[in-house]
């Protein structure tokens, strides 16, 4: 029997029970759409997070938090460590910082208190860290300031200061001129033999850093050169917020910049080998990927249950079809239809139902997914007007792989559910069928 004729047969058979067949297809389509839409959330959120991370400049950064001393204790990094890291393959630059303390800075009648941090500007230049205005310091009396520092000089005598949602004072309350090139005064307190002296050290703002990539993180610091750090930290009796300041010959914090995204992994591996405690978005992403892959698998599994439920419908439909057609099948067998052909016809019929269900389910899933992606931001905006979704946010995404998985599951389940009825069809007894005893 030709395949074409088998299809014709199936079509004729299904026409006889159009309602039942279309209900079964509908159930399968619903199961399939359910699976796809459910899993598409994990796919969508995953791709959103990956995109966000890959687009962030921080993606080539590796934070180094300390070095294992061999006994499980992590200590800070010194110049020698930094040098050895700089020599690793794939490393572009290593920036490093040391905290001095909080100090009060003032310009005209405005002032603010800010943490003062030594920063290694040459390596920052090399790392390509962008600054929003001005240039990196050329001598020890020049400083860089954080983006938010530049916005936070306020009048201490002002009655009441209003701040915006990020904690930055509103324009009318702050020093409004551009700080670049201006001199700010740093207030130094020294305590020697119980005697407190206060002097001011003028510093010139050479540039302002970009605002941090994450909108919730703010940069209120003042960044000074190595030379200035050494000079200030050496002042006897210099007292910061937490008491006398001791000069550090190590770095509290270092960030390694890899040349390219591909270099991050090997550099992280090298650093870990040498005992550094490191953190990078890329290694975090491995965990994120793992988490999302587990979530995807779980959701696909739940979706599969929906298809399994639909397959009960297919099983019923096919069983009824076999029962109804038993006399015809008996006659066909009598005149020479082989059991193989009969089995194939019924398997084709159940696969056809599965395939139609999958196709309709996929179309429905796309429609649902697109409307959710369009509608969700709108709904969230109504419900939480103050929250903003990150740009490029996709709640639900249906990649080809998900379609293929869904079709495979759908077809496998539906064909399997047709196997029993198809086998029953082949087992129909010719004589009983012709006596209409079935």
């Amino acid at each position, binding site marked *: 029997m030709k395949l074409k*004729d088998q299809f014709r047969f199936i079509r004729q058979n299904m026409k*006889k029970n159009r309602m039942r067949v279309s209900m079964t297809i509908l159930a399968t389509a619903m199961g399939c759409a359910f699976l796809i839409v459910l899993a598409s959330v994990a796919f969508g959120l995953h791709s959103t997070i990956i995109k966000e991370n890959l687009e962030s400049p921080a993606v080539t950064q590796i934070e180094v938090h300390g070095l294992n001393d061999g006994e499980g204790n992590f200590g800070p990094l010194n110049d020698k460590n930094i040098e050895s890291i700089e020599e690793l393959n794939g490393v572009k630059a290593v920036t490093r910082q040391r905290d001095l303390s909080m100090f009060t800075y003032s310009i005209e009648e405005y002032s603010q208190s800010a943490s003062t941090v030594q920063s290694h500007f040459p390596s920052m230049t090399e790392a390509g860290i962008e600054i929003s205005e001005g240039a990196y310091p050329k001598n020890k009396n020049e400083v860089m300031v954080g983006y938010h520092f530049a916005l936070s000089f306020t009048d201490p005598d002002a009655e009441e200061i209003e701040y915006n949602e990020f904690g930055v004072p509103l324009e009318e309350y702050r020093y409004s001129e551009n700080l670049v090139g201006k001199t700010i005064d740093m207030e130094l307190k020294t305590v020697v033999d119980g005697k407190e002296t206060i002097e001011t050290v003028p510093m010139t703002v050479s540039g302002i850093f970009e605002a941090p990539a994450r909108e919730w993180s703010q940069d209120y610091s003042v960044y000074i050169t190595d030379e200035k750090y050494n000079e200030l930290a050496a002042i006897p009796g210099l007292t910061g917020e937490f008491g006398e300041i001791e000069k550090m010959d190590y770095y509290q914090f270092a960030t390694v910049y890899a040349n390219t995204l591909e270099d991050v992994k090997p550099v992280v591996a090298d650093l870990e080998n040498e005992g550094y405690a490191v953190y990078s978005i890329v290694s975090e992403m491995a965990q994120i990927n793992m988490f999302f892959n587990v979530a995807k698998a779980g959701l696909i599994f739940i979706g599969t249950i929906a298809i399994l439920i639909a397959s009960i419908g297919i099983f019923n439909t096919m069983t009824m079809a076999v029962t109804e057609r038993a006399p*015809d099948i008996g006659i*066909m067998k*009598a*005149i*020479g*239809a082989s059991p193989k052909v009969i089995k194939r016809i019924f398997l084709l019929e159940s696969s056809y139902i599965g395939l139609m269900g999958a196709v309709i389910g996929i179309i429905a899933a796309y429609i649902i997914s697109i409307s959710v992606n369009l509608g969700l931001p709108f709904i969230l905006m109504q419900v939480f007007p103050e929250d903003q979704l990150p740009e490029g946010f996709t709640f639900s995404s249906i990649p080809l792989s998900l379609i293929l998985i869904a079709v495979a599951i759908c077809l496998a389940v539906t064909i399997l559910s047709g196997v029993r009825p198809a086998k029953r069809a082949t087992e129909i007894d010719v004589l009983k069928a*012709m006596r209409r005893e079935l």
Partner: protein
Amino acid sequence: MIEVNQVSHHFRLGKKGQQSRLDVIKNISFHVQQGEIVSIVGRSGSGKSTLLNLISGFIKPSEGEIIISDEKVSEFTESEFADFRLKNMGFIFQNFQLIPSMTAYENVELPLILKGVSEAARKQMTIDMLKTVGLEHFQGHYPSELSGGQQQRVSIARALVLEPPLILADEPTGSLDSETEQDLLRFIQKLNRERGITFVIITHDDEVAKIGNRTIRITDGELAESGVFV
């Protein structure tokens, strides 16, 4: 053409565990030559249909062997027998056994479809066959829209369409009135004469049996006599 060698068949009746055995065919042997019309007669319940069903392969003999066209069909698997039936046998049944949801045309076409004949050739052969049985004007009718005689002619057309060398008929006139019966018998003789088709016809009616060149009588599952009508 057909060799039935020491064939016995029994059914098991009743519930499992307390079954009784019913011997229906008891050590029967006979031959059918090519081109013969053989009638098998016997009273109702004597085992005629069971014998024909054994030859048709709808049931397997408990003992003995059946050889058709030099093939030991009693050892065929179900699907081997199905293919063999399609190529070598045509069937005429007492109650026609047409597929009710198919038109006369579609019923006749069915064996051609099963054999994988191309659509164009199929059309030609089906129409020719319907003409042969005189039903070309009824091709679009469903079995329920045809008289008993017409239905039986559709079923003959279906049996003949693949031009099998052998046709097995179980009480082919059982549902027909005597006039249609005579038509059918004449048609069978014509097919036998013109196309050399071998017929094995079961009947409980001695009148009908007369169209055979030879009659085999079965009594209680045993071969009673085998005679030749002249």
